């Protein structure tokens, strides 16, 4: 059957747009993190995996391994903060850091174990999942990337890849090798212009669109958002007007983790996510981000949608070659970028 068959084409397109919407969200997170911190954040897809699988664990009434990771990172970052404050001779903020770190850890532990055992309703579990996954963003920034903040893009990229391996390895330890699905947030189908769409797909597209609008509002209208953009444009300049680059980096990673976790919750009902699924999903966001040159948000999002569509068409006619097609697509894109844009070296003052 031809992919342009009227019985197939709309379904493939809808599928492509649904996945594409998630890739687009991820590509936005990647552009944001790169612009603010120069980190090419390869582990973005791991937030997706942690999002889905944390919820899946909670569904089974288990305490997700995410809690362990969160507590360990919290402990390390608390120690780092305390040591740093003591070195400055600031005993008071060392004390505050230490006490709040311990209190936060104990609180999260108590909350998670209670709610997991109680098999709380879906909405509560979703919120708990976000509570467990989103803080991973700023904590990973604090522990892994903040000490490297003066390093070159290349060093940051290598650290990023190392972190990706660690997180995938932990995913396997925490959640096992099997894939899991999470329950759908919306049942049933809707017929739109002769095309039947599952409500879950519609939900994914709508939530993604809402999130993008939210991000636009955040970056365009709020002071914090503007501060992030300022840091992205000119790190030194932002510093001179009082924006702390580490605070901006931490915030960028928080937004990235939030986007990742939400993406995981959105795709959880439609595909079985296992510990290594996140990486491929994240990389498809990357292809979009690269189409946008790692700087342009709208082009990145459109590129990611395109990736979703191409993947969907390819999976129908050439399913074995789906990944090859998607990842080889990056080469003509890079060539086109290389020939069309004037290149600059980072060293030029």
């Amino acid at each position, binding site marked *: 059957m031809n992919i342009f068959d009227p019985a197939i084409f709309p379904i493939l397109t809808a599928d492509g747009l649904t996945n594409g919407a998630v890739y687009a969200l991820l590509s936005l997170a990647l552009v944001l993190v790169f612009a603010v911190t120069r980190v*090419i954040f*390869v582990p973005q897809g791991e937030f997706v995996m942690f999002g889905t699988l944390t919820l899946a664990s909670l569904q089974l009434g288990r305490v997700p391994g995410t809690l362990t990771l969160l507590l360990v990172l919290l402990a390390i970052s608390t120690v780092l903060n305390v040591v740093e404050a003591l070195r400055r001779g600031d005993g008071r903020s060392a004390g505050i850091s230490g006490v709040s770190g311990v209190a936060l850890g104990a609180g999260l532990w108590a909350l998670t174990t209670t709610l997991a055992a109680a098999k709380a309703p879906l909405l509560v579990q979703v919120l708990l999942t976000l509570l467990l996954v989103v803080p991973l963003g700023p904590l990973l920034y604090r522990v*892994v990337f903040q*000490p*490297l903040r003066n*390093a*070159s*893009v*290349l*060093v940051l*990229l*290598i*650290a990023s*890849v*190392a*972190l*990706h*391996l*660690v997180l*995938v*390895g*932990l995913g*396997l*330890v925490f959640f*096992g090798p099997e894939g899991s699905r999470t329950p759908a947030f919306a049942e049933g189908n809707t017929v739109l212009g002769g095309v039947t769409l599952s409500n879950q797909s519609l939900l994914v597209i709508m939530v993604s669109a809402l999130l993008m609008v939210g991000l636009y509002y955040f970056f365009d209208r709020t002071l914090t958002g503007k501060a992030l953009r300022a840091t992205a444009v000119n790190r030194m300049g932002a510093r001179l007007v009082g924006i702390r680059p580490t605070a901006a980096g931490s915030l960028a990673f928080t937004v990235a983790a939030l986007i990742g976790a939400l993406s995981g919750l959105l795709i959880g009902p439609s595909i079985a996510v296992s510990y290594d699924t996140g990486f*491929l999903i994240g*990389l498809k966001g*990357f*292809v979009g981000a*690269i189409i946008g040159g790692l700087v342009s948000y709208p082009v990145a999002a459109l590129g990611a949608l395109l990736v979703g569509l191409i993947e969907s068409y390819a999976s129908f006619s050439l399913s*074995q*070659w789906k*990944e*090859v097609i998607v*990842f*080889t697509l*990056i*080469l*003509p894109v*890079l*060539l086109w*970028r*290389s*020939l069309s*844009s004037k*290149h*600059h*070296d*980072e*060293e*030029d*003052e």
Partner: protein
Amino acid sequence: MTPRLILALVAALIALVLPAVLPVFQVTLLTNVAIAALTVVGLVLLTGVAGLTSFGQAAFMGVGAYTTALLTTAYGWNPWLTLPAGMIVTAGVAALLGLATLRMQGHYLPLATIAWGISLYYVFGNSPALGGFTGLRGIPPVSIFGLDLTDPRRFAYLALVFLALGIMAAQFLLSSRVGRAMRALRSGTVVAEAFGANTFSLRVQVFVLSAVFASAAGWLYAHQQRFVNPTPFGLNVGIEYLFMAVLGGAGYVWGGVAGAILITALREVLQNVLPTLLGTGGNYEVIVLGIIIILVLQFARRGLWPLAERWVPAGTPRLLARAITFPHRPDPVPGSFILNVQNAVKQFGGLRAVSEVSFDVKAGEIVGLIGPNGAGKSTMFNLITGVNPATRGSVTLLGRDATRLPARTIHRLGVARTFQHVRLFPELSLLENTMMGGYARGKAGMIASLLHLERREEAALQGAALAQLERVGLRDRAFDQAGNLALGQQRLLEIARALTADPAFLLLDEPAAGLRYGEKGELSALLRRLRDEGVTVLIVEHDMDLVMNLVDRLVVMNGGQELAQGNPQQVRDNPAVREAYLGVDIEEGAA
């Protein structure tokens, strides 16, 4: 013999004994280390030396391995023919990837290699002709003089010979003209281009070279295992090769070897120890490895090798015996135009940094380009040297229209420059830094350098560089690290580097900035000597005393425009110049 050479010989001796005495299991491990190390040495040239990186080296190994697997099993080729065949195929793929990405910033290449690493894995796995995910079996052994290398001990020697050749070629390359230009790439392209290197072409060449190293390793792997499947060529393995380079020290050939040994050994230990400690539910060694790499990047970013190398003194390098000297560039006719700038305009968005400026420099002159901060001097300098070409107008250098020429072509016309912010390579010796200036005088390419067939040229370069170091008074420190010099001496070193190019026209960008009084005097004397020897000089400088007493003519710029021209006395008497510098009318100033 230097202590380091002795150590290398000891290492070679140990490598020679090991395959004969170790148990077979360890011999296989040793072969694995040698194969990995060969790939990593190629990666060191790319990552630590040229400042680029790749996560796709395992995929390149795969190309080499699959090429030999297919050609030997399906077409009955001799393995010794499939080795170059695999290298050619790999080089083609790498050239394609490099051409697509290397014009852009350095991080696009690694991203492309991630994508291509994944893609290739699926291509291997989904191609029935390549055996799909089960792979290809029955690859014939390599034979030498009719002797089949089926025994692991014999094969280990083959792998070690390959590694030794790889290490030697890499060291040869690094101590050559091309190798020095490669090192220059890491800190950007401006210096290398200013001395005539085509940095884009050089980047592609380095990337292809590192891929060819991996291809040879893949060939070894295929004939060691006698079987290939997609798994050992996946992205994760490619990442591991990069980790080996990072852990050992990506800037050092021996660091790469050390990294390959350490990670292979570590993996063995962890795979044995961790499951008994933590259970068999996960790939714990990957987690540990990832954490180790992050810690290394945070606390020893240059890897472990430089920490070890400190204990072994480098010894004094030996100079090569000189057989040829480079011919001296014919001197331009005295009084002819060296530089002619006509109505040059440089527009940056809404800002006009240089507006309709015209001036010229004649052979044998020292001309000063002065003006207050923001006058457009540096922009003008960049227009002339091709770093940032003019929006309108023309620049003629030594009789050729150079308005649109890239920096490297302008350099080859006989123009050499220094930099306002010193751009030396602090880890290299004064001699090596100076020799970089003679890049355009040599011809030997990468292959000649890998084989050390360019020693005559290298000797001539050494001679030329030493002569220039002598000229600026730094000859006795030729083997010191450039980073150990005081700023004034670094500026002199930059002049020596520029002079090594044997320029007809020397451009100096604020050579006296940061110099002490006495040093300034020496600089003036040096520049006068140069003029007497026929070098034409354009100098951008802030120090009025120095300029006024040195130059034949001055061009004064202000606010992007030409304010005045003439000899020092005329310029000193020019009211507009006074106003620009003192900011007041003479009447007001007197009042």
